[in-house]
């Protein structure tokens, strides 16, 4: 009688294991960083559309198969293009996007600095 109890306790322990919680957290993080391509202004995480539901399932499967976050993003950008990512990667098409705020900041800073110096 003791053995089934022990088995149940161990299975409950593994069911709520931190590993599974981490996996779910990663899954949600990835879904939050993906644009639902058929919805207006919603992430895959927020959307309940057929597309988003399938995408969440595929993210889960890929994590279970041992793929890293970057590998999953690469897989999805190959299928749907860079547009699916809310946080575009740093490449030759996005240099301007990443550097423009910095440039504006330094330019504004230089003007303010000059004014103060005067």
């Amino acid at each position, binding site marked *: 009688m003791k053995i089934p109890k022990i088995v149940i306790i161990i299975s409950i322990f593994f069911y709520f294991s931190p590993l599974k919680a981490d996996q779910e957290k990663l899954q949600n993080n990835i879904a939050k960083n993906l644009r639902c391509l*058929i919805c207006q202004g919603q992430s895959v995480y927020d959307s309940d559309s*057929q597309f988003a539901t399938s995408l969440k*399932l*595929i993210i889960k499967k890929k994590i279970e198969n041992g793929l890293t976050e970057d590998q999953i993003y690469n897989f999805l950008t190959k*299928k749907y*293009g860079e*547009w699916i990512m809310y946080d575009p990667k740093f490449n030759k098409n996005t240099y301007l996007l990443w550097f423009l705020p910095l440039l504006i900041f330094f*330019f504004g800073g230089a003007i303010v600095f000059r004014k103060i110096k005067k």
Partner: protein
Amino acid sequence: MKNRIVPFLIVIFSIFLFLIFYKGLNKSSLYAPNNEIEKDIPIFSTLTFFDKKEISSKNFFDKDKFYLLNIWASWCVPCREEHPLLIILGQNKKLEVIGLNYKDNSNNAKKFLEEMGNPYKIILLDKDGTKSIEWGAFGVPETFLIYNNKILKKFVGPLNQDSVKIIEKTLK
């Protein structure tokens, strides 16, 4: 001299910003997928619709042959709209039409085929929608023209007379 540099830089910067916004705001905010693609077809395995046998995509896509993979479902209204065109395309000997039944009830799908006709040489099952994601699809209906294990063209939404013309032109 110094006093002139600042206004000059501001003007240059304003022009630069204007150009960026002019280009950016003129661009459509609606996402339009690229239909002219040359991507390898995904490798996947799934069940067949009628006899529920496990099958791998490697086994039914031969080289030097045109295939039309159509993602459909009985609950999808635009699928009814395009179905007569698929029947016509299914009669073309140069082309094999393959169906991918998307998140559907098996009985409803069978009724749909009985009512509308079956243009598909083989129908594969996509119960949870993940196979369609492997194909880079957005939903139903969606159609892929395949040759030499490569996706030549992708038709998002129901096929129409124009898409049939494009397919027939590619087959020639």
